[in-house]
């Protein structure tokens, strides 16, 4: 696989050099390559529902000239002559369009050359062998989920002479094991190297939890409860907050759900420290316009708002430095607290252990009030012991309470969450999050 990645890199370098070589004076060309070589195997009832392989490669072109910019992308066939012809034809269309456009006051691209190359080692197991093991270990269980694994590559080149490459081989095995109805244990195993013992241990844990899910479910009345949010549950909430919460454009146009922090001085709990930790993430360190991302961006410090994420257009519009490729965090990090993971049930004492949240959305964006559902193995805990599963409940609560005045503790340990999304392409977003103990969490239905 490493050899293939090098071959693809050489192919992109060759293609980009040929495209840039024929550029008329005064034009700048930005080129982005994206490639994926992934297996996807879908399971239901611990059997194969759909199994397949996807190989896709695209080239994105940004043509800049006379203060104007236009863009296009095309699929690649990996046959140089063929791809050159189609890319040149597309470039011709862009060149015809450019003079018809008005000048772009927010045009921004990297002018300094910073080359880089990162090749992740391929330490992946054969996907069929990993899945044989999963199916064997989970024999007798109603397991449903998906294996997504393989190589993903990103490349950047421009006519100023910059070249960047980033490739990684990863897997993301995401599954649920059902007992009956909607009572299930949700698990995930993702990373770069496969450890059979890790999988065996996870399935054994699931079998134990399934016994608990067989007890008569507790039906909660709407009201306020003490809860523990696992890192997975917190990730669902943070994905909502990240929807405009940290972007410079959304701040300057008053659309951030953290508007209260910007306009009214509202704060979160003093122990909340949130950053976009670029160097700890899985995404390339270069942006699609050739900027190099900083090590990290401090978004919230000691509960107060600090800095925004500024992409290339926002940075030009609002006169600041580019510090991200996307104004939605891709490598979110929340600092941990003092609560030890082993003490979570004891610290919760009596309340709801929320393993997963689902389908969140804003009920009042101005106040960062979020609604959503509990899902999977959410457990009722009494005097530090989980005693019963809980039927799904709808919550409606503000982040200013959850991570603010009602936050009791954060776990010391983090979970490294690799995003399972695969719309169009496999996501390379990730997050490192602690769990959170919260008082008076509001359920409505």
């Amino acid at each position, binding site marked *: 696989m490493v050899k293939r990645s090098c071959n693809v890199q050489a192919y992109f370098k060759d293609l980009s050099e040929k495209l840039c070589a024929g550029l008329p004076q005064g034009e700048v060309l930005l080129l982005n390559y994206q490639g994926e070589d992934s297996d996807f195997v879908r399971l239901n009832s611990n059997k194969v529902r759909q199994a*397949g392989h996807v190989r896709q490669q695209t080239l994105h072109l940004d043509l800049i000239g006379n203060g104007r910019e236009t863009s296009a992308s095309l699929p690649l066939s990996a046959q140089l002559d063929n791809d050159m012809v189609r890319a040149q034809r597309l470039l011709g269309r862009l060149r015809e369009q450019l003079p018809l456009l008005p000048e772009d006051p927010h045009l921004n691209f990297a002018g300094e050359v910073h080359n880089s190359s990162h090749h992740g080692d391929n330490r992946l197991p054969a996907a069929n062998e990993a899945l044989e093991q999963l199916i064997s270990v989970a024999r007798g269980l109603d397991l449903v989920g998906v294996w997504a694994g393989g190589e993903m590559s990103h490349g950047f080149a421009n006519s100023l002479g910059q070249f960047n490459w980033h490739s990684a081989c990863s897997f993301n095995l995401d599954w649920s094991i059902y007992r009956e109805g909607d009572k299930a244990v949700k698990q995930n195993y993702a990373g770069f190297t496969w450890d059979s013992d890790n999988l065996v241990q996870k399935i054994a844990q699931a079998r134990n939890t399934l016994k608990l899910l067989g007890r008569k479910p507790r039906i909660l009345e709407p009201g306020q409860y003490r809860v523990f949010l696992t890192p997975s549950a917190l990730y669902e909430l943070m994905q909502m907050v990240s929807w405009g919460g940290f972007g410079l454009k959304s701040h300057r146009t008053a659309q951030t759900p953290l508007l209260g922090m910007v306009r009214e001085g509202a704060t979160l709990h003093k122990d909340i420290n949130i950053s976009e930790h670029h160097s700890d993430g899985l995404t390339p360190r270069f942006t699609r316009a050739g900027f190099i991302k900083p090590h990290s961006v401090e978004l919230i410090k000691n509960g107060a708002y600090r800095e925004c994420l500024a992409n290339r257009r926002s940075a030009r519009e609002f006169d600041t430095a580019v510090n991200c490729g996307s104004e939605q965090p891709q490598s979110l990090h929340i600092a941990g607290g003092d609560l030890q993971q082993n003490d979570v049930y004891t610290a919760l004492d009596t309340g709801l252990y929320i393993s997963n949240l689902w389908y969140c959305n804003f*009920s009042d964006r101005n106040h960062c009030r979020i609604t959503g559902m509990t899902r999977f193995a959410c457990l009722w805990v009494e005097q530090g012991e989980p005693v019963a599963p809980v039927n799904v409940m709808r919550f409606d609560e503000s982040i200013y309470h959850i991570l603010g005045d009602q936050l009791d503790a954060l776990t010391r340990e983090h979970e490294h969450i690799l995003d399972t999304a695969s719309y169009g392409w496999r996501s390379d977003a990730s997050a490192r999050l602690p769990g959170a103990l919260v008082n008076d969490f509001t359920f409505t239905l």
Partner: protein
Amino acid sequence: MFADWQSIIDDFKAVVPRVDFWSLRLVQDETETLHVRDDVLQPPSLVQSRGAHISFIDRGGMAYAATSALNREGLRTACERALDWLAFSRRHALIAADSMPRPGYSGSYATAVHIPWEAWSLEDKLGRLQDINRELNIDKAIVDRQAQLSRRRSQVTLVTSDAVSIDQQFHYLFPGYAAVANRGAQTQMRSGGGWGSARQGGLEQLDGFAFPDSARQVAEQALALVEAPECPSATADVLLMPSQMMLQIHESIGHPLELDRILGDERNYAGTSFVSLDMFGSYRYGSELLNVTFDPGITQEMASYAFDDEGTPAEHRYLIRDGLLERPLGGVVSQSRAGTAGVANARASDWNRPAIDRMANLNLEPGTNSLDELIASLEYGVLMDTNRSWSIDDSRNKFQFGCELGQLIENGELKGLVRNPNYRGISATFWRNLTAVGDAGSFEVWGTPYCGKGEPNQMVQVGHASPACVFRDVEIFGGV
């Protein structure tokens, strides 16, 4: 047959291994987007996609491979990958692949386009978007304005080892604009002109979205919403306009009726369903006023087509008639697994994804009341327009939805605007409180290009047409 497809098919036939059944789905797609924000043109984009999806069935196994390398070598490599997974799936098959029905009909489909995208020059299109930006700029409190016009052209060809050949050509238009108003810590957004939706067809579809005529009203309403009182908290009647009915139908009828959800395929991601197989034919889903159809034949609706991506001819079918549940949304593979009737709705988002059960066009049939009569029938309630927030449990039962705009109704008359209108309920009981259905006068064609589902994930366009509808005794509330 579309240009140069035949040579790709010939190359594929030259390398395809001997299997019981194969299909080759070729997809070529081009999307052009123009977007003006705060009077500034964003870099126009032209996105091309092109690839092949290969499916094999052989001796009880079933597998696929997809590739953007459409030359003989690329297709050969894809066939090898599919063969690898074919062997694996045979050992662990969930489905008796050999007994799955196969496509038996050839045919074609093309979106009716009256005013093609190219009929307006680039300068003309940009000029209109700039005009809309100016129209939205009515006050300093308008802090963000945007207008967009996008066109997608998609060509899909399906050929099989049984000599079936299906060609379909789709044209979609994605127009819209939005204004954001802010005072202090209160921000409200209002959209119009088709924002967030789309239609099949050409530029003639703009009229149906009141594009650009509603631009000023959009800005005025954004401003008014900032100053409006919060939606009251109460149990009251709601009048849902078609731009919200779309979402209500989508989440609490469409998804729970998807047969693959009922069969458990989606339990790890999109979820399951409160509907079970034994309910079809007897379950009262809603009041007698509720009639819901799968209708692939409304030309401008987003998911109109002649064949689904498994090659099944698409036909109009009732799913719910007079409130009673009749049939699910399931393609032939799901129908065969479940032993029940369904519809032609197995669809893939692109060449790189396999077909699964999707919603397509799911419509609520018109009733007999004019919009004025619906309003007059409410003693106290809220009209809600244009979805902006959606959340529902994984069984598609407990929901909470929010809209951009609310308007009080008192004693049968429309009163002032209210902001942050939300409502919540339970699907299994909500539809039984459907007490009035608008006539053809309020019937509108909507839909969304952003329906997400499946592992690996797939985003597809779905159509929802509906009149305005009245529901009794709904829990409503506002913000803060």
